[in-house]
């Protein structure tokens, strides 16, 4: 058991972690039976704190919720293929390759389809790379919202590596894809193209030293050599 990551159990149960730490911790949970039990209990404990916030909602809320429910299809036991959350969590889950998991803490959102695990080894290698970047002493985490979703970027100058986690951007449309760029000076360099029609993905890349900014563009598949303006969003490094 990785005791260092396990010290995050409390922060995880309180949702006081960022996306990357959450993914790393979920991976840890999958490997550690006792930890899952502990986190389930800590989550239940945290939930008790909500007892102190009880507040009667306006009556219109119930009307609105019931109206939306009556036109909302329920998910099956497995999540729909288009679930961004599932896809985003896949790499972390696949990293444990073995018999996939619906991990703890009432995190019923975490379900993985078997067919998704075919690339488990490649993803495990990627997860390892990501973990290395996350654990770098000089790792810097930046997050920004764009296109209805969120992009988290972690870079380490010491390792000269970075990882971008793209979560739930709006569907770019069939035949289109989001492309990620690092910009040094005025020279953009592609550091990855997400799957066509997808708003989620994880890209690991090198050569981050000296980069001034990071951007996401909307391109026709299979991607462009220079980013189409205007960018969907970006971060200053």
């Amino acid at each position, binding site marked *: 058991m990785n005791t260092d990551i396990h010290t995050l159990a409390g922060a995880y149960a309180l949702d006081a972690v960022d996306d990357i730490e959450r993914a790393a911790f979920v991976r840890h949970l999958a490997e550690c039976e006792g930890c899952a039990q502990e986190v389930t209990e800590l989550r239940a404990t945290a939930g008790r*704190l909500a007892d102190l916030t009880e507040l009667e909602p306006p009556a219109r809320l119930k009307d609105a919720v019931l109206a939306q429910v*009556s036109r909302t299809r329920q998910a099956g036991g497995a999540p729909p293929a288009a679930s961004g959350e599932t896809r985003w969590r896949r790499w972390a889950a696949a990293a444990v390759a073995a018999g996939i998991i619906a991990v703890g803490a*009432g995190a019923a959102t975490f379900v993985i389809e078997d067919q998704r695990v075919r690339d488990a080894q490649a993803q495990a290698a990627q997860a390892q790379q990501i973990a290395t970047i996350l654990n770098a002493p000089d790792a810097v985490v930046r997050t920004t*919202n764009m296109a209805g979703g969120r992009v988290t970027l972690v870079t380490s100058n010491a390792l000269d590596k970075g990882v971008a986690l793209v979560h739930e951007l709006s569907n770019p449309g069939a035949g289109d894809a989001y492309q990620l760029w690092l910009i040094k000076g005025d020279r953009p360099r592609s550091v990855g193209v997400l799957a066509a029609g997808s708003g989620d993905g994880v890209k690991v890349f090198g050569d981050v030293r000296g980069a001034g900014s990071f951007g996401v563009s909307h391109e026709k598949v299979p991607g462009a050599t220079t980013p189409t303006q205007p960018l969907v969003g970006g971060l200053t490094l």
Partner: protein
Amino acid sequence: MVVMTSRDDRPRHLAAAPDGVPDDPNDLLSRVARGDEAAFSALYDLLAPRIFGLARRILRDPAQAEEVAQEALVEVWRTASRYDPTKGSAASWALTIAHRRAVDRVRSEQASTERERRLATEEVPYDDVVEEATARLERQQVRRCLKGLTDLQREAITLAYYRGYSYREVAQLLDTGLPTVKTRMRDGLIRLRDCLGVAVG
């Protein structure tokens, strides 16, 4: 470990099913998983005050709290079949969904500008959090158990849970090292768990 002792499964408003039997959230949720809208309506009555109150506490803004509560409650409906009773009570599961939604919202971009400013300029705000938390306490046991924590444990936990701060932000607010804050969140929750007698399994 003992089975399910958490009190939060008790019906809050003595809501009754049509046949007069009081509803239990876990039973309701399994009916909801089968598409039972009447069961969902009863489950709403049990959970909505805590979900709305929690969203309101974290987001402050009533309109945003309503939006987030609505999103969370619809997610409960949508994903009811994924609820696993061995992983905790229905209420705990639903509150986990709601808390996460509220925290995601409060950390979203428009909010974060203001939060960053607050982090930079605000004097340690935990007093008012704790005071606010304790002033409005309705649940004696939770209050008593929160009081049983060390100041740092309580501040770290309440800033994270009620305000949506990450542990990094909490460390900054409390001017305390990251490892200490992580550890206090964990051992504080463990102490709280033992005091409340929460057991799942």
